[in-house]
């Protein structure tokens, strides 16, 4: 049976995270950071392979990457990896129902028990950790030895 996709939101459904609360934002950030980190990983494997061509090739690679722009990208990677890891740990718990509360008898205003502060605070902790890691990274990369 041909499935009618005509009114599906498509990628637009992913790209508008602000409508539904923190969990939707964290889903969107987890995807974005995941794809970003994968791209960095592949680039990193490629850049470190210049080691095999000797010290001159390595130095040329360092000239390309150890620049203010390169350091900004690295800073972004630090933030992305910290957020993705911390939120990932939170998701490993919540995906198994841990920290989401127990089913019961809903009553007005019918607030969802799973969208509670216990697991939501994990998102905020991940964001704070990412910001802290980026600050520390900036002090190392731009602070000078």
């Amino acid at each position, binding site marked *: 049976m041909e499935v009618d996709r005509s009114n599906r939101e498509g990628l637009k459904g992913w790209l508008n995270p602000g409508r539904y609360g923190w969990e939707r934002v964290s889903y969107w950030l987890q995807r974005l950071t995941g*794809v970003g980190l994968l791209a960095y990983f592949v680039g990193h494997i490629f850049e470190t392979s210049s*080691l095999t061509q000797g010290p001159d090739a*390595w130095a040329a690679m360092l000239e390309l990457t150890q620049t203010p722009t390169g350091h900004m990208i690295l800073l972004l990677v630090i933030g992305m990896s910290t957020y993705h890891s911390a939120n990932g740990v939170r998701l490993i718990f919540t995906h198994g129902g841990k920290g989401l509360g127990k089913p019961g008898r809903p009553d007005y205003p019918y607030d969802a028990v799973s969208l509670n502060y216990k697991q939501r605070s994990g998102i905020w902790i991940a964001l704070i950790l990412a910001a802290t890691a980026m600050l520390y990274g900036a002090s190392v990369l731009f602070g000078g030895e």
Partner: protein
Amino acid sequence: MMLRESQIMKIHYVTGIAAIFVVAVHIMMRLIMPFGMSLEYDNVIANYHNIPYVVLLESILVLIAIHGFNGLRVILLELRQSKSWEDGVTILTIAAMMAVVAYGTRTIIIANGLGFE
């Protein structure tokens, strides 16, 4: 050898958790001396001569490749649903995984055999 989706996702979670630890060590190795100095050719080569560190690098390679490319597979499977697309995505992500691991392992093996400047 077809894995069930539940088995694939369990691997995804385990590789994610394990990767946190090994990547944290990898990052800390850049901080045991001034950052710029840690990237000098001889210091980098010295890392590759350290067998426990080589094992760490190889495990990062495998864990991140599995976790990352499986994540990409999940995103691509959600974007489109047809037999050709799904089979293509599965084959390509496995191939990319193996290619990245192979290329990274090549770097590790060659660098391990290199002398200092």
